[in-house]
């Protein structure tokens, strides 16, 4: 019988604390809150100015966030959600759980932004990362398919980068997507459930290239002083992953939530994102990007399907992918 009493005790103390300082609950993905992500720095910086207690609740990856929110519904104690991407925002908007951010959007994104519900806080280009020693680096999906380069990708049914690749091929090739996937099939060593497994296999030497981000080489360069990795620029352009935050309509702290959304685009947060999330900040900090980012590939063409297109194209694109690779 000890345990329910203990839990009741926790709930009581939590209630008492809440009466003193307002609590802002932020639902986000695992690697945002982890000791190596931006979470700890964001928490310290925001608590210095808000007179509140910022609490993170972590739930897997971007897709898990949305699923978690749908499970909780309007009863969710989260006030803000951080870390959905544009492949998920249409479904997130359809839940009716989000409130308009009401802010004027001033961001440095390679594309225009006018979503009334979601504010971008960082972004990156998907890219195939390879070792600089690789002999002939393909410059497009077609060259990749024609080469004998071996790649590892993530499954679009279980991973957000995997879904991003699906949209990349669809955005670049439209109706020719099945043909491209058919030609890529013999280059694909394997498909992993998530990003970590794919990246791990690549580092083990199982593949010449792995689907990741143009910013991945920056991690190796800055954190490990290893300049052996590079991203391959593709002529058809690179698909964007834009990570967004939104406010929940049922929040009991709507003003704090607004303040937090605005704070996400301010210097203290934006300046830590490049070296914690290893993505581009949505608003360039005054000090510019950290040293090392200037070595990264910057694609000329950025591809991004609108949130509604991404949602409506997904079933068809998934079927094409499955048919081409199951053969």
């Amino acid at each position: 019988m000890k345990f329910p009493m203990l839990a009741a005790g926790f709930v009581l103390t939590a209630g008492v604390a809440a009466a003193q300082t307002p609590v802002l609950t932020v639902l986000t993905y695992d690697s945002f809150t982890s000791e190596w992500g931006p979470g700890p720095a964001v928490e310290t910086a925001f608590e210095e100015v808000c007179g509140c207690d910022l609490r993170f609740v972590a739930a897997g990856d971007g897709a898990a966030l949305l699923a978690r929110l749908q499970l909780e519904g309007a009863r969710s104690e989260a006030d803000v959600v951080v870390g959905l991407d544009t492949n998920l925002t249409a479904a997130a908007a359809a839940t009716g759980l989000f409130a308009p951010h009401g802010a004027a959007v001033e961001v440095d994104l390679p594309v225009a932004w006018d979503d009334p519900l979601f504010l971008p806080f960082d972004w990156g280009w998907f890219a195939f990362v390879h070792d600089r020693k690789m002999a002939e680096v393909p410059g497009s999906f077609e060259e990749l398919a024609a080469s004998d380069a071996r790649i590892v990708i993530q499954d679009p049914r279980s991973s957000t980068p995997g879904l991003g690749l699906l949209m990349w091929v669809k955005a670049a090739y439209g109706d020719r997507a099945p043909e491209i996937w058919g030609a890529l099939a013999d280059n694909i060593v394997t498909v992993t459930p998530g990003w970590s497994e794919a990246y791990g296999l690549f580092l083990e030497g199982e593949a010449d290239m792995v689907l990741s981000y143009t910013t991945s080489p920056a991690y190796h360069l800055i954190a490990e002083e290893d300049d052996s990795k590079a991203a391959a620029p593709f002529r058809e352009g690179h698909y964007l992953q834009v990570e967004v935050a939104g406010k929940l309509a049922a929040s009991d702290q709507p003003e704090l939530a607004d303040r937090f959304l605005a704070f996400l685009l301010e210097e203290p947060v934006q300046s830590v994102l490049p070296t914690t999330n290893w993505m581009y900040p949505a608003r360039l900090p005054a000090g510019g990007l950290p040293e090392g980012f200037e070595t990264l590939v910057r694609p000329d063409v950025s591809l991004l399907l609108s949130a509604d297109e991404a949602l409506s194209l997904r079933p068809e694109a998934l079927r094409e992918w499955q048919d081409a690779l199951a053969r």
Partner: protein
Amino acid sequence: MARRAGALIVAAALAALTLGPLALVMARAGGGALGAADWAALRFTILQAALSSLVSVLLAVPVARALARRSFPGRGLMIALLGAPFLLPVIVAVLGIIAVFGRAGLFNRGFEALGLAPLSIYGLHGVVLAHVFFNMPFAVRLILQGWLAIPSERFRLAAALGFGPSDVARHLERPMLREVLPGVVLVVFVICLSSFAVALTLGGGPRATTVELAIYQALRFEFDLGRAALLAALQFTICGAAVLATGAVALPSAFGAGLDRAAVPFAPRGWRRVADALVLTAAAAFLLLPMAMVAARGLPGLFQLPPEVWAAAGRSLSVALPSAFLSVSGALVLALASPRFGLVATLPLAASSLVLGTGLFLAVHPFLNPTLVALPVTMLVNAVLSLPFAYRILAPEARALEADYGRLAQALGLGGLARLRWLTLPRLRRPLGFALGVSAALAMGDLGVIALFAGEGGATLPLLVQRLMGAYRLEQAAGAALLLVLTSFALFWIFDRGGRHAAS
């Protein structure tokens, strides 16, 4: 009567914790439908699980026999190490297997040096290979236990009657295998049913889609709770059918009780001796090479672990120990009661941890902040999920105990705690130690459910390994994973060794 009531309570709790969450998810969805892709996933799932379990057990029999009848230096260590692959976190083991059998692995580099074409591990054969790596050693332990449970008097009698190896096989070994093997095949089959990361990563693409991946997709990307619940129910149905099928095949061997004299191994000489040595060497190489690669990859990271890792390790331990005691107590109660509890004691193996976690989340969320109960829920779920293993380890010997000593105990009026103290615990020391070791180690490693509940800073060691990997820190992740393996194995070794020591 009290024992039967106890078993009924445990069985009811077990059924509620495995089927209840599924019912909650289903109730929330209100219905669902399966598509053609789901049936294709089901076919692949059954195919790979059937192949994996048959190959694991076929390979395990000669290894168990060689271990049972030979004595050599390092035999105890080898038996203990057999517990290790089973306890490795999936992704760590997959990377270890790839370091040996992968494209850039030891084997292919060897082939390359010899001018041979490289072999690809990706495909159905890779999935089976990985599942055999995980489960064959566990199968060996279960079968070895069967061999050691044949009373030494029977072997003495066989020797006195001048039995040759084929006579021993016919009269002693085959009846034992007939009793033990169906259960072992069943456990491995059901474990492989819910395989997800191994099947996809080594399967090489969407052909290798399992039911568990379809569940993941339905829950995470489509929020189709109805489909997820139907798929989970399908897993339970296959598991139930497999339990019934094996129940029909298995026959009790009925050797009768022995006097616990020191075993005289039946150790035929000649070519069989050479064959046994070859079997043991091959098995050791197959299991040790990937584990050595895991250790080699983890060592550099082990000495530069971030401080959070130690706190997480403590949290994991505080979950693992109570979970193991709970699980083994429950399993013992069921195993002593009646073989009819076999189905309910196997069911948790087929549970989809995602559906389980989601159902429990739905149960807890209206009343409590899920983060507050992350560790107790993980403890409970791990106890439920490891109970089938504990049950499988305890059941054969518990049944023999009842058959051999039940009437005597009844005649003496030995019941309740006295019976537990003077009969049950002393006679079941060996399987109890093994079961506690396996349960504790499994509870260290599981992360299926904690992921939905853990908040800021409440991570267990497996979750932390995952977070490190997600933050590019693969070297530290490998170090933390090695720490996880070492802790799990140490727990396993302490309990298992304690049991074997007390029994000999």
